[in-house]
């Protein structure tokens, strides 16, 4: 057994288009091994099969409020509130399933398909505004952020006019350098906002996701405002920052690989497949799917004991040659759907089919309507989010 820790985590990417360079060595030489964290240590699990095993086994807990859950930021564990209500993402069975199923009806493939025309309209409006504005423009602010924000705001029934308020707070919560007290304060501020909004909706529940939840849960006799506040908050935060980062990064990847872009332009039937490949290729949420072992289990030949933390390296798994041929190549024609970019198991992304649709519509529309789109700066000068738990771009200067 390895008892010393060779590597420190979280580990920054040195190339925006590849995982941290040590991932390959870890995956090939010590696929389940110990790493140092700011305040302790944890196991990393790096092979595709092992990552899936961990994320779909009840012996691993998602309880982010537990004092022993692996902390990626120094001092974060001390700011946890084990007595507080958990967000969906931090719940375990048997609490997690019913909470998730309460909202799943809003995210079925069929329900989302009905939103497609409206999402297309939102994308078209943003591109109209982009084309009417000055060159160069920042694509993050012109398209990547507003599209998913507008969509999730409309779904939830959150006034888009307030988007700057929660967008700034979201960026703060995902930045690793944000001190734990400030992160808590930022979350508290979004929570207060959501609580006021929901209190107002309780009076006369509108026909939006939050309003429908109030009606449905009241009818079942299970309505609690605090639980809906948590759900609303999670959907709002999870629903825009992630997709925005994927829009920005994929745009850069398409512009650097014109032959790949040509494939989706030639046949939009390829776009959904390209979306899967971009998700795999960038794996923007990497170590964020951490878990706490609650019962001894062997993973990839290594015994993991109850009480020990695990980081599932999604980016190592998504570049595992056992699961993907030529994994470091961007190939929009490959079948990449078994990637773990949305996680795996009971917590696999609830908004994944919404994200897929948004990305598909953006790729199809952006490159068709702005065929001469190009980067306005060198790739090396782009501000990548090397310091955030969710990878992406702070700004993306483009011209056409």
């Amino acid at each position, binding site marked *: 057994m390895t008892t010393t820790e060779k590597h420190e985590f979280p580990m920054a990417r040195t190339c925006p288009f590849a995982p941290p360079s040590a991932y390959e060595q870890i995956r090939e030489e010590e696929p389940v091994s110990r790493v140092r964290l700011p305040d302790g240590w944890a196991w990393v699990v790096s092979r595709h099969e092992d990552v899936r095993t961990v994320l*779909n086994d009840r012996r691993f807990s998602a309880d982010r409020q537990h004092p022993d859950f692996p902390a990626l930021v120094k001092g974060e564990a001390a700011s946890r509130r084990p007595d507080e209500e958990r967000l969906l993402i931090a719940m375990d069975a048997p609490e997690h399933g019913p909470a*998730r*199923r*309460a909202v*799943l*009806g809003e*995210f*079925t*493939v*069929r*329900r989302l398909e009905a939103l497609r025309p409206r999402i297309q309209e939102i994308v078209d409006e943003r591109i109209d505004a982009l084309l009417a504005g000055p060159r160069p423009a920042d694509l993050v602010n012109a398209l990547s952020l507003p599209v998913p924000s507008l969509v999730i705001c409309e779904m939830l029934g959150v006034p888009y006019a307030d988007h700057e308020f929660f967008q700034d707070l979201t960026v703060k919560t995902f930045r690793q350098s944000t001190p734990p007290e400030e992160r808590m304060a930022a979350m508290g501020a979004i929570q207060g906002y959501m609580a006021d909004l929901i209190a107002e909706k309780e009076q006369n529940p509108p026909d939006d996701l939050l309003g429908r939840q109030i009606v449905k849960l009241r009818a079942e006799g299970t309505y609690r405002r605090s639980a809906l506040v948590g759900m609303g908050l999670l959907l709002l935060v999870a629903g825009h920052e992630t997709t925005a980062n994927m829009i920005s990064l994929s745009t850069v990847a398409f512009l650097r690989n014109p032959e790949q872009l040509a494939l989706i332009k030639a046949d939009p039937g390829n776009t959904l497949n390209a979306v899967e490949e971009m998700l795999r290729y960038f794996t923007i949420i990497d170590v964020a799917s951490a878990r706490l072992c609650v019962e001894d289990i062997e993973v990839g030949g290594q015994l993991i004991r109850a009480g020990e933390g695990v980081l599932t390296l999604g980016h190592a798994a998504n570049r595992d040659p056992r699961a993907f041929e030529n994994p470091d190549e961007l190939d929009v024609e490959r*079948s990449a*759907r*078994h990637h773990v970019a*949305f*996680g*795996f*198991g*009971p*917590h*696999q*992304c*609830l908004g*994944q*089919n919404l994200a*897929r649709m948004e990305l598909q519509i953006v790729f199809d529309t952006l490159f068709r309507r702005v065929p001469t789109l190009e980067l306005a700066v060198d790739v090396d000068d782009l501000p990548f989010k090397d310091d955030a738990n969710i990878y992406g771009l702070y700004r993306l200067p483009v011209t056409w």
Partner: protein
Amino acid sequence: MKIIADTGKCVGAGQCVLTEPALFDQDEDDGTIIVLNEAPEGELVDKAREAVLVCPGQVLSLEE
């Protein structure tokens, strides 16, 4: 071939529906799986295999 679905493990991600809407649907209330066609034939056999591979709850299996 027969599709076996351990529906209690379904996490409602809809990856199966996305794979082949002719074989799978989701409950409109809680998003969990509904198998529309348990005995796929021809091209649908490959789709069933793909659904087994991508399902995040490891809900699906095939009886050959």
